[in-house]
């Protein structure tokens, strides 16, 4: 079972979106003024939507060392500070949300399996509801989803560190069960990454 540290800046209801299950046990780390968590017991660091990127910048060297040990990071948020190794999220509002569509890229680990992209493209018929801005991806990282303007929206980075990073351009992901219903795209993408971490015998650098 993966041990995951879920970073929390005290948002109301956050714990409902990351529920421990047969693959992952979540421990919540509440950000304080002296934020400096011990990452060593964990396999996975989860930085969810709405996180504190001032706090994350304070531990950027620790995150880098964690990843260089072959561990994993999920950041599904707008990482506006420079704490994610090799990659940077940028906000942008120069394109019409009406025109946003997501296009799959190379996906050698099958992280897009069982995902209905139309769930990300449209919600109640509206487009542009999921991601915001885009990621300047590290050279060599896999762009799993690009937007209408070929900008990276979902990135799997196995090259910047010895570990693995799944990054989204601020689009939320979740680890919840909908009582027997099929997983939504937001859950399926996250769980495909968890499945990769749980079953992979190949280190990130192959």
């Amino acid at each position, binding site marked *: 079972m993966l041990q995951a540290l879920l970073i929390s*800046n005290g948002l*109301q209801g956050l714990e409902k979106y990351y529920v421990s299950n047969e693959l992952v046990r979540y421990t919540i780390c509440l950000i304080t003024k002296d934020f400096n968590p011990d990452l060593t017991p964990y396999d996975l660091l989860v930085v969810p939507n709405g*996180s504190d990127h*001032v706090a994350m910048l304070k531990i950027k060297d620790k995150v880098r060392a964690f990843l260089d040990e072959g561990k994993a990071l999920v950041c599904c948020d707008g990482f*506006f500070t420079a704490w994610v190794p090799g990659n940077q999220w940028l906000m942008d509002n120069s394109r019409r*949300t009406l025109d946003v569509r997501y296009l799959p890229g190379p996906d050698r680990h099958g992280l897009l399996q069982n995902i209905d992209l139309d769930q990300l493209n449209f919600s*109640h018929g*509206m487009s542009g509801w999921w991601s*915001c801005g885009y990621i300047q991806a590290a050279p060599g990282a896999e762009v799993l989803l690009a937007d209408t303007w070929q900008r990276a929206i979902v990135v799997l980075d196995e090259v910047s560190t010895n570990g693995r990073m799944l990054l989204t351009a601020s689009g939320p992901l979740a680890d919840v069960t909908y009582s027997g219903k099929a997983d939504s795209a937001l859950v399926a993408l996250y769980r495909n990454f968890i499945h990769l971490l749980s079953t992979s015998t190949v280190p990130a650098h192959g």
Partner: protein
Amino acid sequence: MAKIGLIFNGVWSHYAMATAPKYRDLYELLYVHDLTAAAVADLDALAIPFQSNQAVLTEKKDIIYDFLAAGKKVFLEGDSSTAWLDAQWEDRPVNNYWWVTDPTKPPVSDTNYDHPVYQGLTPRQACWHTHGVYTRVPEAAEILQTNAGGDVITWQTQQYGGTLLATTLDPIVEHGVQQITHLDNYVDRLTEWLSGVRPTPDRMTIDAAAYGEGALV
């Protein structure tokens, strides 16, 4: 010189709005963990956005109430905690789609358009969605917006000295997110009410230099 302190939980949407060229001279990001009375002393107003850290706000509530006691303004959006606010916020499902599924039933049914923040707004500009409701507000509070069930969405009170305006709308967060394109109308009026300065009327833009290594934190 900044006039409004935006109490900052490190969240990207707060950052995007406060560092946007049309607002950045009026708003100062005040990282919640570093919030002190000295940091707010020279400001005219405080803004507490949705997705704030209610536990830390509770620890620092004296700063907020001392600020109000000095006759200044505080704007609070989204959720809140009874641990620091004499009002009961309750969560409700967010309806982002009412204007598609049933435009005749918006999440707010009654608005006091005489309030300076709401003057001149259309109903669509005055409510996009809500994050919960208030089922109890301070006795002396003035109700500014309600939903069809009579729950309170927006209220204000002067009982603490200055003016506390609270709403379950989330104009600061959603304006930072930029998926709702009419929010300059609300946020510009809010900014003027808080600071006395009306931002330029053009649409909010983003300064890419404020991201990454150039982040203003």
